[in-house]
Structures are given as C-alpha cells and as structure tokens.
C-alpha cells in the first residue's frame, strides 16, 4: 500500500516538474503538454475506474495548488476523467496499441474543455472560445504524441505497485 502511494506521488511529482521545466520550453505551437492528464488516463486504462479516479484526484489536487485559480477544479476534472476512462476500458473488446494514444488525445481535449468551463462558471477570466479549443486540441495532440514514449514506463510503475495486474495492453 505504502509502495503504491509513493509510486503515485512520485509519478505525479515528476509529471508536474517536467511540465513546468523541460516541456515548458518544448512547446507545440505554443501549447505545453498536460502530463498529469496523460498519467491519469493511462492509469485509468491500466487499473480501471477506481485507480483512475484516485490518480486523477491526487494529480489534479497537486496541480491545483500550483495554480492561481480556485483550487479543486483540476482535481474535479481529473477525478471524473479517470473514472470515465476507467469505465470506458471495460467496453473495449480488443485493445490495440493505438488505444492509449487515442484515448489520451481525446481525453485531454475533453478534460481541458470541461476544466475551462468550470473555471469560467466560477468567474475566472475567460480566455476566449477559439483559443481554448485551439490549446485543448494542441495539448491533446501533444499528449497523444508522448503516449507511446511514456506508456511503457507508466505500465511498469503501475504493474510494480499493484499486487495483481488487471489488464494487459
């Protein structure tokens, strides 16, 4: 249990560090990757709705405390995203190597739009619909591009921190 908690904390911390340093300089047409979104979606795929929701909540809350917007918005978004992707996994009959890539792309896109909607409803200054959609799209594409590189590492971390493996991709 302790090993699992440490693994999740370490993965989330690493994702946040990379997101604010290395990947802040390697942008895709002005967009940085949302690595915590990527981690949440991959863990949801590997571990199901419970694992996805827990990792999403942890990562989202950690990210929220580094932002200048009302705390809890990213945690809410990623909890629902992790749970949703985890549920979706049960409906995927024959998973292919492209499935994680596709789901990270679509999940990040949808997740960012949801997060901005909640932020807007809470009175945060809106960044404009076009810019929001553009950034969400680019971030989704960036996440999808990074997934084949990061998925094997995250699968290894997930597998080592759990007593039994739920599904193989």
């Amino acid at each position, binding site marked *: 249990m302790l090993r699992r908690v440490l693994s999740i904390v370490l993965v989330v*911390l690493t994702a*946040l*560090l*990379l*997101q*604010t*340093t*290395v990947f*802040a*300089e*390697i942008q895709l047409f*002005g*967009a*940085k990757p*949302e690595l915590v979104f990527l981690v949440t979606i991959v863990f949801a795929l590997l571990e*199901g*709705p*419970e694992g996805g*929701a*827990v990792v*999403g*909540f942890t990562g*989202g*809350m*950690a*990210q*929220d*405390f*580094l*932002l*200048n*917007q*009302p*705390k*809890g*918005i990213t*945690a*809410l978004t990623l*909890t*629902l995203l992790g*749970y949703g992707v*985890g549920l979706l996994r049960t409906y995927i009959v024959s998973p292919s190597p492209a499935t994680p890539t596709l789901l990270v792309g679509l999940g990040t896109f949808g997740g*960012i739009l949801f997060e*901005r909607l909640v*932020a807007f409803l*809470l009175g*945060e*200054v*809106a*960044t*404009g619909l076009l*810019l*929001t959609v553009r*950034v969400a799209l680019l*971030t989704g594409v960036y996440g999808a591009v990074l997934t084949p590189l990061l998925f094997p590492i995250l699968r290894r971390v997930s597998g080592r921190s759990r007593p039994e493996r739920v599904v193989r991709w």
Partner: protein
Amino acid sequence: MALSGRTRNARLLVIVLVSASLATITVDYRQGESGPLAGVGRAALEVMAPLQAAVSRVTRPVGDVLSTLVRLPEVRSENERLRAELARARAQLAQQASLEARYEELVRLLDLQEALDPPTVTAVVIGSGVSNFEWTITVDKGTDDGVGVGSPVLASAGLVGRVVKASATSSLVELIIDPDAQVAARLATSRQTGLLQGQGEDDLRMRGVDPATPVEAGEPVETAGYQGGLYPPGIPIGVVSRVVENPAALEKLVLVRPAVDFSTLEFVLVVKQPAEG
C-alpha cells in the same frame, strides 16, 4: 455479485473524491488568499521551487546541446568523426553565446536596479506556469528576501508582472500577458492613460483611450504609476502594434506588443515590499 460490489465501491469512491473536490473549490473560493488552502498553496510552491530549480539547472544546458545537434545537417557516414567534432564545437559556441547573453542581461538589470527608486532584488526564473491558461513563472526569491504578494516584477526590457503567491524562498509571478492581469498604462507621446489587459499569446489590449487621441503604431507605452498604484511610473511595457479606429465607439482600441520576450526570461528584478513598522 462480486462485480456489482466492486462497481458500487468505485462509484462510492468517485462520489467521495468529487465531493472533496467541490468542498475544496467552495472553501478556496470563499476564503481566497486568507484561508488555510492558500497556506497549502504556499507550501506546495515551497516544495516545488527547489526541485524546479534543480531540474532547470540540469536540463537547460542539455536542451541547448540537443537543439544544436538537431540543427546539424545530415552528412555521410565517413564524415561521422568530423560531424561529432562540429557538434561539440557548436555546442560550446552555443553555450558561450548563451553565457554572454546572460551576462549582458545581468548588466542591464544592474543598471535598471541602480536607476530604480524602490529597493529591488534580482531573481532567477526557475519554472514556468503549470497550465496552458495561466501565464505565470516561478522565481527563486520569496518573503525571506522582502518579496510579497503584489510586488512588481521587471526585466531589463520592461515590465514583467506582479507576484501573486509568495513562499519563504520562492514566488509565483503573474505575467502582464495573463488575461487576469491589468496594468494602468500611459501612451508615451500623447500622455493619454488607459488600462492594459493581458490576452495570452496575443498583444495586450489597452482600454479607456479617448477616440480623439492621436495614436500611431510604434508609440511606446509605459506604466502610468498612479499615486498608491502597484507599479512604479515610467517602466516600459511595450509599443503600440495596432490601432483600430471606430468612430462609433466610446473608446479607441489600442493593441500593445510587450517589450519583454517572456519565452526567454532568465533573470528579473522584484521590487521589495516596504518593511513593516
């Protein structure tokens, strides 16, 4: 039966986590910077800042070398040795150029520091904002160095932004291009004042300019520095990039290109808070 039990557990877990998220949003929204969650935010900044500084220190030179290597043209295999030598030479050159640029930036900051009336402290940019929708940076100076929430932040080229969160050893700076940021500004030629608002990657938007005021592209814009205002007066912000004339409008739309290149910021000056008592 076992499956339905597991599904029930997952649903229960999600309800708990969503409720916790909503409770966090509510508490933070109501209490703002004075609440207990703001303290947790400062602690998170305190934990992340040294890690960000360490990672930035390691990855910045590596990034320089990598980008230099990526730019090298494709050559034949028999030229491999020459290519490696060329790569090494270029990497060294890029590093040297980078060091020279950093030195010049520090000299310019020193000049600015001496010219400024309020006391300032030089800070290193150690991280970028975590979100694509917040234009912020993290710097390595905090309340221990006299920096506090609201402290203006400058670069040698002009205004950078203001501190919105400060821990003991680091601070989160909201850039003037953030849509939440607003700066009282003055057109340098006509002396007309207005309010500048960030628009992310797009140029700043200046509001409140009288339609009768003649404004042309290229006109410098600086901080207005009202009595009791946040920013010192006369700090360059940028130049007018575009003026949209609309006779029917009550104000003129003026777009301003920031003087600071926020993507390459390494060092900044932070104005210290006046000592209490």
